[in-house]
């Protein structure tokens, strides 16, 4: 089964409501992670401010931090390979990585790619 790991920057909480201005991307992604878990996807988030050892112990994440700096987080690994960095994935991307059968959502309505029997 696909394993998705999300390495977040140092922050207080995963929805970002603790910041002075709530980041829409964090709010949306927190909801998407929750949705993906409900679909049975193995997805885990690591917060640099709380679990820095997880960053240090993973050579890929460590060298990413050394090369690009913590300002370039989040980093997303899919089955231990770098899949995305610098922004959070959309629900569609999570769907593709996890090889889920896509559920129609607002953001995918106009896309025709996944309207058939099988998902791209």
């Amino acid at each position, binding site marked *: 089964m696909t394993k998705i790991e999300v390495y977040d920057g140092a922050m207080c909480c995963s929805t970002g409501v603790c*910041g002075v201005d709530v980041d829409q991307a964090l709010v949306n992604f927190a909801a998407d992670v929750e949705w993906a878990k409900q679909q049975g996807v193995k997805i885990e988030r690591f917060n640099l401010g709380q679990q820095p050892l997880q960053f240090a112990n993973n050579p890929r994440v460590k060298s990413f931090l050394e090369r690009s700096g913590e300002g370039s987080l989040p980093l997303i690994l899919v089955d231990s390979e770098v899949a995305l960095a610098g922004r959070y994935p959309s629900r569609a991307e999570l769907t593709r990585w996890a090889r889920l059968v896509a559920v129609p959502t607002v953001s995918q309505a106009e896309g025709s790619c996944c309207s058939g029997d099988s998902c791209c």
Partner: protein
Amino acid sequence: MRFLDHVPAFLFFTGKGGVGKTSLSCATAIRLARQGKKVLLVSTDPASNVGQVFSQTIGNSITVIANVAGLSALEIDPQLAAQQYRERIVGPVRGLLPDSAVKSIEEQLSGACTTEIAAFDEFTALLTDGALIAAYDHIIFDTAPTGHTIRLLQLPGAWSSFIEANPGGASCLGPLSGLDKQRQQYADAVKALSDPDHTRLILVSRAQKTTLDEVARTHQELAAIGLSRQYLVINGVLPEREALHDALAAAIYRHEQEAIVAMPAVLRDLPIDYLPLKAANLVGVEALSSLFSDRDEAIPVAASTVADVMDLPRLSTLVDEIAKTGHGLVMMMGKGGVGKTTLAAAVAVALAKRGLPVHLTTSDPAAHLTDTLLGTLDNLDVSRIDPHTEIARYREHVLDTKGKDLDAQGRAMLEEDLRSPCTEEIAVFQAFSRIIREAGKKFIVMDTAPTGHTLLLLDATGAFHREATRHIDPLLHHTTPMMRLQDPERTKVMIVTLAETTPVLEAAGLQEELRRAGIEPWAWLINNSLSATSTSSRLLKQRAAFELAQIEAVRTRHAERVALVPMQIDEPVGIERLLNLVEP
């Protein structure tokens, strides 16, 4: 002494700074040790002076007290505990991760909640350490001031219900999540705390209305989280004989007796002890053992020294200087109960009387400006930042904007995170920065909430400053709230204290915190000073003489400017009496 009957294993003294918790807990420890018990005295007060009381260096490991057989002591410094806690998380990755990443982790862990949690962590370890419990008959906690204590004690309750409500776990626990492994220890600590056979909580108060009201709130909050076995000690009550021949002593005696009669009903049913006001602050084993007796050591007053403080400026001098600028932000800062509300109101009224436009506001949930003013004035607006209203407004705003496109599940999760303790600070901060924007046109006089809260506000302001400077084009002319607070032309911070050891130490600690945030306090106000009065009461004159060392410390070591506010015969309520405080 009722609180000394059938003493259980754990004793907690709680109350705000300056009520005499340290003296009481030390005297209790000495008494139990002299009865042949093995006693451990633990101070979690950031301004701990237990070491000074026993003339011995104590520090953060258990130390045997040389001149009291059977007694050991331990001082937990919350700042140091926080540093060690931070190190536990950051230490293992230092050198492994890039320096800038390590810095961003440290930044994240430098908030006030980390300090709270780290201190609580230390204290939990003591409550659940089987070896310690076996080694001592009694463990006595001279706890940190009230608000701090409540938060410490509320955490385990909030924490376990948070865990239950969020089985996913990856939610807004903030720095608490670093403690995940010790969940069982927290549960055990809460159990020990709420078991009356193990734990007795002693609320310490003075015979003053505001202090008793605050103690009543503490009582209810602690009872609500299961600490129901509570005792009340009213410390430092002025004896009747002092009131016979002196107007000020008579007024103090009357106010204290009225406050006792009118104390909140929830306190009246508790077992209560009264301790008389002593001439001197109690330092040393012999002086402390006399705490529970009526006998008082007569100490000769050095009458000449009292005259020295008469040279210090009064509040009116400071108000003259403030008035010159025509507008700006004036903030009263200090621990609860030192008189911030009264002095903020006095400054606001004095400025408004001069025809200057003034907005007087408070973010202290316990302050009631209308009760202090008892009237209205031209040029004076009064408002209040109510945390409950602000949180509700903030939650609604976030849900309506950022949460509007979420599905039901995502929305529920956002709502859950918006229940976190940080939300309150942010919501209050938003309201705060709305108001201080007005300070370009008029005077804003703020009576801020007690210290911990204030610092959280500043913390949030700091974060805002960093965020704003990161996002904003550096060429753009823009003032963040933090820049405003740091600019002495726009903001005058006044630190309010009393001329007593613990309040002065606490105020100095507050000043340090402000300086770390780049804010230099403009002046110190020493409130309710007896030495600035002409009392003839022997006891009050002795207390006045003991103020001098503290006043001297403030003048020479801490403050750029000092003003002395005399203890008033009439309670400073209503516009006329407030103006009396600002009389030259």
